[in-house]
C-alpha cells in the first residue's frame, strides 16, 4: 500500500497551478480565490480542508453574522448585570447569585439526524454537552426540541424511533436528566426533521474557564477518544448543503457516538478543572482538530505549533487532511502549562482516557502544523476561525405572504352546539402536536442527579443548584413554526414570549435567552427575509423583556429540494428561582381549589391548533403580543408564587384554554367544573374563541379557597384582568371535566384519547 503523502507548504509554493477540489469541499470560486489571496499562494490540501470546514455556513455563520450582531447591540444595562459571558464563546454564562453561575446553549443537529437518526441525535446531545464542559461547568440537564414530518407518513416512524432512541441512549448513559423539550409533527419537516439539543451546566464563579491558547510554551494536549474516519467533512458537506433526493448517500459523513467515553470525559475534565491543571479546554465538534486548533489559537495571544503525527488514530490509514477534518466524537483539547503536565497526565490516566501532546503555544502568530516531518499548514489562525467570509445575501419580500396573511381563519366554520365542540375538543386533545408525549419522554431519565424539581410535562424544567439554599433555575423552550410562516417577526417574538411565560409560571424569574434558528436556504432571498425579520423580532423582544441572548446556533439549508421548512426559531429562556421549594407545577393535584383565568381573550384563531387540526388551515396573522402585558403577568405569578398562593399555574398557548384545561385534569386525574359565561360576556366572543383562541398573556391558576381574597386583591392591585372560572373537582374513575352548559368529558376519556396517538403510530 502506498502511503498518502500530504501536500506541503513548499509544494504549494512550487506548484501554484495545481487544480484543487475546492468546489467538492463546499467552497465557492470567490472564496477559494480569497484563500489564495490571504496566503499569497495556493493552499495546501490540509489548509484547504481547514478553510473549507471553517468557512462553511455551519462554522462561520457567514450568511447570518450581519444579523446576529444586533443581539449584542440591542442591550440595556440591566441585561448586562447577570451576564458573565456573552455570545461568541462556547456557551453563555449567567450569574444566578450565591456565587453560582449557569451556562446553557441550544444547538441543531438536523441534517445528520435525517440521514442517520439514531447517531445523528445521539451525537447532537454529545456535542452540546461538550460545549458546556468547555466553560468549566458540570452539565446538569438536557432538553430536546424535535420536529418531525407528518405523523402518518411511513418515513416518520423511522426518524422518530431513531432520534428518540439516540437521545435516550446517549443522554441516559451520560447521567444527565432530560427535563423537557418539544415534539411537533408537520409535513414541512418531512424531508428535513429538526433535532435541536440543549444542555445546561452549573459552576462556581471562580471556576469559569474560557478556551484560548495563551502563554508561549504551554502544551496543546488532545485527549479522549481516538481520531477515526467518522464525520469527515460533516460540517461542510452536511450542514451547508440541502438534500437532493437523488444524490448518493451521505451516510459515512455522520459521526458515531460513545456516551460512556463522554461520561468518563466529563468526570475527567471536572477533576482537571478542580485541580487547577488546565488553562482551558476546547471541545472538538464540527470541523474537529481544524476548528479546535484555529479557535484556540485565534482566541489566544500568540500562535500554535502542532505535530499531527502525535494524534492517536483509530485508523492508521487516515490522511493528514482527514485527521484535520475528522469529527470523531468525545475528544477535547486542553492547554496545559509544562509544570502541570505530569499532574494532568496522572488525572487522565486515572480515568483511563487516552492522551497525546500535540504541540505548544508559540509566539509566531501563526498556526503551523507538521505531518511526517513536513510543514503542511502555515496560516494566520484568525483568517480560518474568525475572519471568514461575510455575506450580505439578497433579501426579498415573499411573493406569497400577502395572500397568506389575507386568508384569515375568520371565514372558517365554528361550532356552536355542545356536542360538536366536545368532539372538536377531543380531536384536538388527540392531535399529534397536543397529544400526550409520554411515549417519548418515558424513555428519558429525569431522576438522575437527584435535583430535578420540575420536568415534562410541566411548563418548564427546573433544577436545584444548591442543596443547602434551594437556589435553582428553570428552563423552557418554544417555537411555533406556523406563526413564523405567517409573520416571522411576530413569530419569533411569540416564541420568546411563550418561553418567558412558561418559565414565569414555574415561579422563576427569566434572566437569559438562547436560540437555535432553523431556516431554509440562505441563498433563497425569501428565506433570507424570513431570517432577517425573525432575528429583528427576537432582538427587539429581548430588549423589551430585558433578557439577553447569551448564545445559540443558526441552522440553514433546512429544506428538501426547493421547499424550505417553516421558519423555526427555537427560543430557550432560563429563569432563576431562589428556592425550588416554591416552584409551581402546571397542573392541579387537589380538589376544591378555585380556578382563575388571568388575561383577556380575543378571537385569535389564525395559525392556531384549532385552525390547523379541525380545518387543515394556515393563514392570517398570528396572535397579538404585548410584551408589557407579558411582563405584568410574569410579575403577578411570581409574586403569588412567592406568597405561596398558587397550587398550579399553566400558560395558555397551543390549543388555547381548552387544551390547558385538558392537560390540567389529565396530569393527576383531578377533574374540574368550569364555566365560560363570564368570559363570553366580558370579552364578547363565541364559544369557539373562548375555548380555542390562542391569545397571549393568559394563564390558568388554581388557588386554595382560603387564599381567594388575597389572590384577587393581588391581581386587582396590579391591574391584571382576572376571572374566577371554575373549581377543581374529584379524582378517581368518575372524575370529569365539565364545561357548564357546553359539554362534560370523563377525565379517563381525555387521557385515553391523548395517550393513544403516539403509540398508535410508533409502538
Amino acid at each position, binding site marked *: 500500500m502506498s502511503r498518502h503523502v500530504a501536500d506541503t507548504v513548499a509544494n504549494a509554493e512550487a506548484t501554484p497551478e495545481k487544480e484543487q477540489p475546492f468546489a467538492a469541499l463546499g467552497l465557492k470560486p470567490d472564496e477559494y480565490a480569497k484563500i489564495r489571496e490571504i496566503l499569497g499562494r495556493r493552499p495546501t490540501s490540509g489548509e484547504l480542508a481547514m478553510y473549507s470546514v471553517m468557512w462553511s455556513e455551519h462554522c462561520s455563520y457567514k450568511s447570518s453574522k450581519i444579523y446576529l450582531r444586533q443581539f449584542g447591540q440591542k442591550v440595556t444595562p440591566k441585561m448586562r448585570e447577570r451576564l458573565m459571558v456573552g455570545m461568541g464563546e462556547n456557551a453563555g454564562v449567567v450569574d444566578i447569585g450565591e456565587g453560582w453561575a449557569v451556562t446553557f446553549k441550544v444547538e441543531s443537529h438536523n441534517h445528520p439526524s435525517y440521514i442517520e437518526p439514531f447517531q445523528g441525535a445521539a451525537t447532537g446531545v454529545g456535542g452540546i454537552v461538550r460545549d458546556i464542559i468547555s466553560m468549566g461547568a458540570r452539565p446538569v440537564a438536557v432538553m430536546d426540541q424535535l420536529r418531525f414530518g407528518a405523523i402518518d407518513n411511513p418515513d416518520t416512524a423511522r426518524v422518530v424511533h431513531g432520534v428518540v*432512541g439516540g437521545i*435516550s*441512549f446517549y443522554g*441516559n*448513559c*451520560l*447521567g444527565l436528566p432530560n427535563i423537557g423539550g418539544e415534539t411537533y409533527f408537520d409535513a414541512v419537516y418531512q424531508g428535513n426533521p429538526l433535532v435541536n439539543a440543549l444542555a445546561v451546566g452549573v459552576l462556581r464563579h471562580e471556576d469559569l474557564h474560557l478556551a484560548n491558547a495563551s502563554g508561549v510554551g504551554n502544551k496543546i494536549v488532545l485527549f479522549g477518544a481516538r481520531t477515526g474516519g467518522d464525520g469527515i467533512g460533516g460540517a461542510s458537506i452536511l450542514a451547508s448543503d440541502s438534500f437532493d433526493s437523488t444524490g448518493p448517500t451521505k451516510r459515512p459523513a455522520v459521526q458515531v457516538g*460513545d*456516551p*460512556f*467515553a463522554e*461520561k*468518563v470525559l466529563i468526570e475527567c475534565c471536572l477533576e482537571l478543572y478542580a485541580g487547577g491543571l488546565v488553562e482551558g479546554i476546547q471541545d472538538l465538534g464540527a470541523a474537529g482538530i481544524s476548528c479546535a486548533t484555529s479557535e484556540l489559537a485565534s482566541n489566544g495571544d500568540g500562535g500554535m505549533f502542532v505535530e499531527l503525527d502525535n494524534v492517536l488514530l483509530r485508523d492508521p490509514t487516515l490522511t493528514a487532511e482527514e485527521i484535520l477534518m475528522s469529527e470523531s466524537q468525545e475528544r477535547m483539547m486542553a492547554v496545559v502549562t509544562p509544570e502541570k503536565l505530569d499532574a494532568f497526565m496522572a488525572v487522565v490516566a*486515572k*480515568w*483511563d482516557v487516552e492522551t497525546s501532546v500535540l504541540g505548544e503555544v508559540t509566539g509566531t502568530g501563526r498556526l503551523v502544523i507538521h505531518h511526517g516531518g513536513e510543514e503542511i499548514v502555515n496560516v494566520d489562525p484568525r483568517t480560518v476561525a474568525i475572519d471568514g467570509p461575510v455575506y450580505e445575501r439578497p433579501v426579498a419580500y415573499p411573493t406569497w405572504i400577502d395572500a397568506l396573511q389575507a386568508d384569515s381563519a375568520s371565514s372558517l366554520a365554528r361550532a356552536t352546539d355542545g356536542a360538536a365542540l366536545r368532539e372538536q375538543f377531543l380531536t384536538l386533545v388527540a392531535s399529534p402536536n397536543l397529544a400526550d408525549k409520554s411515549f417519548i419522554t*418515558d*424513555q*428519558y*431519565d*429525569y*431522576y*438522575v*442527579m*437527584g*435535583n*430535578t*424539581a420540575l420536568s415534562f410535562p410541566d411548563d418548564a424544567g427546573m433544577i*436545584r443548584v444548591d*442543596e443547602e439554599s434551594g437556589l435553582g433555575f428553570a428552563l423552557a423552550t418554544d417555537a411555533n413554526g406556523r406563526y413564523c410562516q405567517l409573520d416571522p417577526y411576530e413569530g419569533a417574538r411569540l416564541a420568546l414570549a411563550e418561553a418567558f411565560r412558561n418559565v414565569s409560571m414555574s415561579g422563576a424569574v427569566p434572566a437569559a435567552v438562547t436560540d437555535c434558528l432553523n431556516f431554509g436556504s440562505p441563498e433563497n432571498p425569501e428565506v433570507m427575509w424570513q431570517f432577517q425579520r425573525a432575528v429583528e423580532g427576537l432582538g427587539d423582544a429581548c430588549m423589551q423583556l430585558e433578557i439577553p441572548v447569551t448564545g445559540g446556533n443558526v441552522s440553514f439549508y433546512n429544506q428538501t429540494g426547493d421547499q424550505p421548512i417553516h421558519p423555526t426559531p427555537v427560543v430557550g429562556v432560563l429563569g432563576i428561582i431562589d428556592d*425550588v*421549594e416554591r416552584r409551581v*407545577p402546571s397542573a392541579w*393535584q387537589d380538589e376544591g381549589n378555585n380556578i382563575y383565568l388571568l388575561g383577556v381573550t380575543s378571537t385569535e384563531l389564525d395559525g392556531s391548533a384549532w385552525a390547523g387540526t379541525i380545518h387543515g388551515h394556515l393563514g392570517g396573522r398570528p396572535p397579538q403580543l404585548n410584551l408589557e402585558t407579558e411582563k405584568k403577568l410574569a410579575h403577578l405569578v411570581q409574586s403569588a408564587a412567592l406568597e405561596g398562593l398558587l397550587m398550579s399555574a399553566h400558560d395558555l398557548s397551543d390549543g388555547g384554554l381548552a387544551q390547558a384545561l385538558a392537560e390540567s385534569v389529565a396530569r*393527576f386525574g383531578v377533574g374540574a367544573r368550569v364555566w365560560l359565561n363570564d368570559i363570553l360576556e366580558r370579552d364578547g366572543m363565541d364559544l369557539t374563541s373562548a375555548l380555542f383562541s390562542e391569545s397571549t398573556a393568559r394563564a390558568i391558576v388554581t388557588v386554595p379557597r382560603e387564599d381567594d381574597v388575597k389572590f384577587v386583591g393581588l391581581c386587582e392591585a396590579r391591574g391584571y384582568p382576572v376571572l374566577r372560572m371554575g373549581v377543581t373537582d374529584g379524582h378517581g374513575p368518575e372524575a370529569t371535566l365539565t364545561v357548564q352548559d357546553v359539554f362534560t368529558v370523563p377525565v379517563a376519556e381525555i387521557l385515553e384519547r391523548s395517550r393513544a396517538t403516539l403509540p398508535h403510530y410508533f409502538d
Partner: protein
Amino acid sequence: MRIGVITFPGSLDDRDAQRAIRLAGAEPVALWHGEHDLKKVDAIVLPGGFSYGDYLRCGAIASHSPIMAEVIDAANKGLPVLGICNGFQMLVEAHLLPGGLIRNDHGRFVRRDQMIRVENNRTDWTSAFDENEEIVIPLKNGEGGYIADEATLDRLEGDGLVTFRYVGMNPNGSLNDIAGISNERGNVVGLMPHPEHAVERGFGPNTNKAMRSGMDGLRFFTSVIARVLV
C-alpha cells in the same frame, strides 16, 4: 456508621446514593473501582449507571474490577451489600446473586414511578418495611428483564428470596414479576428500581398527596443502619 458507594467508570447514580445515605443518617464513603480498599465501611452500595458503557453485558466488566474481589469476599463474610440497577447486574455477574438481566421485552429504555411489593422484610436492607408492603420508587433501565432457569426460580420462590415484586404492571418482562432478590443470608440484595431516587421530598416519585413527594426509598438505608447498629 459508614456506608461505601463504589464509583466505576460510567457510574451515574453514585452521588445520588451518597445523598440517600446522608439523608438516612449515615456517612457516605466514596470507593473507587480500581482500588482494593473498602476503607472499613459497614455496608456497600453498588450504584446505578452504565459501568464500562454496558459493553459485553451490563455489569460484566465491572464485576471483574479490582474492588469487586474485596466486595465478593466481604459479602461472603456477611457485609451488607445493595446493588441498584447496574449494581444488581454486577451482583449477578459476580455470582453473588443468581439469574441474569436482559433487554426489556418491549425493547425500549423505560423510566417510570414503579410500585413494588416488599415480600421479604428479613433482609439487611428491608427490615424497616412491613411484610408485603407496597411502595413506589423510580425505575429506569433498558436491560431490566430478570431471568433464571426454572430450578433457580423455584428455589428463589420456595426460600422466600424474591425480595421485591412488580405490582400493577411488569415494566420489562421479568420472570415472575421479580424486581429484586436477596441471598440466603439476607445481606446481599439486588433490585432494578432505584430507592436512592425516593429519599427527599420534592425530588422523588409522585404520590397521591403531592407531586414528587415519595420517600419510600429512604427505608432501604435506614434498614441497614439499624442492622449494623444492633
